[in-house]
């Protein structure tokens, strides 16, 4: 049985005079210990997916339909009080900016002890011992001294390590990491990612990694979801998708990377922009930018179905393997 099962999740935002759909019928499963990447560009809805699992959507956003089953419980039906036993305890979240998680006026120790005591009956002393152990687990030198320090006294990489230590504090079953290294330098990013991978593997923790970086997804995850304009357009094994992407958007995303083109040649760009949530085109949301689009793409909304190594939402997927794209006139 899967640990987390999201079925038909739809999230809407009530705007001033209309309602926009930010997530449209999202379904996926994650098994215990499985690592899944959610990939997409800004506005694709990948962060909103993470937020809605933890019920962190703030007004005007709300879950308009679907279910989020976590270990047999439907998270969408929990009260705030019940949710508190889940959030931070059984599901932890790591944000892009460590200062979202860390309180600047409390020491690292105070924050970790508080977090522990909120969920477990432990004495202050025992809590500190656990905290030190967790800090050691994320390779923080001199952890006893760090407990007395304030977040601003630490470097960005160190802060993100501490955030990971806090996430691991209560031995969660699932970690949702939303662009955890985007704000960090590449050398630090590599360290943090390796650490996260190691910890997930050794503790058998499931991971949802939300990122725009296909390279990171490739290193970290077993399966991936590609999102576009609030929908999942392709899902399958990470290796399968990266080696043989089925959806034209996934192909475009991979081909647009500079490393996919010889130096000096023009990059293979995707024309146009991601549509705003208020102006998602009918039919396939990607059709205005797609080199394979046919007239039916404008009217028929593609459902996910198996092709190649993945499930793909494209009605023309059979045809496009073997043909070349036509030029897109994108206004």
């Amino acid at each position, binding site marked *: 049985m899967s640990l987390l099962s999201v079925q038909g999740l739809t999230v809407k935002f009530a705007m*001033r005079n209309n309602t926009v759909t930010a997530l449209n019928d999202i379904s996926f499963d994650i098994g215990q210990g499985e690592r899944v990447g959610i990939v997409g560009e800004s506005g694709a809805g990948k962060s909103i997916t993470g937020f809605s699992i933890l019920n962190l959507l*703030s007004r005007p956003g709300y879950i308009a339909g679907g279910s989020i089953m976590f270990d047999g419980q439907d998270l969408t039906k929990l009260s705030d009080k019940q949710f508190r036993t889940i959030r931070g305890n059984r599901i932890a979240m790591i944000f892009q900016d460590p200062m979202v998680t860390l309180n600047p006026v409390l020491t690292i120790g105070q924050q970790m002890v508080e977090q522990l005591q909120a969920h477990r009956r432990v004495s202050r002393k025992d809590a500190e011992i656990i905290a030190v152990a967790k800090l050691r687990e994320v390779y923080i030198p001199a952890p006893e001294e760090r407990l007395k320090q304030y977040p601003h006294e630490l470097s960005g990489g160190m802060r993100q390590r501490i955030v990971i230590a806090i996430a691991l504090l209560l031995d969660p079953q699932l970690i949702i990491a939303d662009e955890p290294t985007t704000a960090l330098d590449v050398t630090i990013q590599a360290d943090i990612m390796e650490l996260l991978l190691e910890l997930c593997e050794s503790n058998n923790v499931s991971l949802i990694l939300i990122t725009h970086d296909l390279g990171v997804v490739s290193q970290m995850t077993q399966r991936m979801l590609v999102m576009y304009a609030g929908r999942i357009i392709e899902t399958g094994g990470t290796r399968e998708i990266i080696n043989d992407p089925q959806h034209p958007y996934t192909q475009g995303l991979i081909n647009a990377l500079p490393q996919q083109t010889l130096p000096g040649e023009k990059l293979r760009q995707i024309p146009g922009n991601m549509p705003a949530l208020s*102006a998602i085109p009918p039919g396939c949301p990607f059709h205005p930018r797609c080199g394979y689009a046919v007239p039916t793409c404008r009217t028929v909304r593609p459902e996910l179905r198996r092709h190649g190594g993945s499930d793909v939402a494209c009605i023309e997927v059979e045809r496009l393997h073997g043909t070349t794209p036509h030029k897109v006139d994108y*206004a």
Partner: protein
Amino acid sequence: MSNVESNLHSQTRWQKFRASNLGYSFLSNKVAMISMAVFVAIVVMAVFAPLIAPFDPYDPRQQDIMNSEMAPIWWAGPRDFTDPQFILGTDAQGRDLWSAILYGTRLSLMIGVCAVALQAFLGISIGLISGYVGGRTDSLLMRLADIQLSFSTLMVAIIFLAVTQALFGSEVFNRYAIFFLIAVIGVSEWPQYARTVRATVLAEKKKEYVDAAQVLGFGPIRIMVRHILPNSVSPIFVISTVQVANAIISEASLSFLGLGMPVSQPSLGSLISGGFEFIFSGSWWITTIPGVVLVVLVLVINLLGDWLRDVLNPKLYKG
């Protein structure tokens, strides 16, 4: 895409206003709408005072001492006289109070707006220079502002006006009282603007569009006026409302103390002051009615200012 475009262009101004953040919040805020209605009504009446007012309060020939202290027409006390000519009654000189209030509001508003314009001019220029140039110039100008702020407006005004009154004699003073008032209220409150503008300039100066303008070779004055100033208008707008209300109160206070407008040229303050001595002899309306007008005017301006501050503060409308 093209659909959206044609929609954008076919919109009227009113539709654009309704669709904007400002318009939306205005139309959904009753307090702002009522305040705006009252404010506009007062302003229109004040501006068209010469057309609306049945009498000219500046013309002594239209005043008859026999008509003095007439009560408002709805107030028929046992010892009071009323006359349907004088809707709100008359003051001690037999002047029609309704006409005097219309003209007085006009004068008060004018002094308020002109004083604030002067404050804004001084404050914005000093704030822009201070924030943009920085360094010693900034320190010097801001210390000047601190010194100016450490004297209360009324104290500076009282000293200045008392000295000028003594210096020029009350006849000359009365003739130019309006300019003295504008000058003194304008000069004493500029630091409010200077500080606000400086703070926004410091924030804007760090943005890349200012760097871009520098790289394009534009001069400092052009960058200050064409690039930074237009991006600082929201806070300027907000403090302007509050400052107009403050300036009107300052003017009224000074006139009440006898240092402002003379009785022959009634402002709201001098009307209140002129009627004050009759309040215990039963003619309450001479001082009360202009007082109510003053309170309502200042209140609606402040309510509008509060609303504007809430709308224009980006931190508030995100949540």
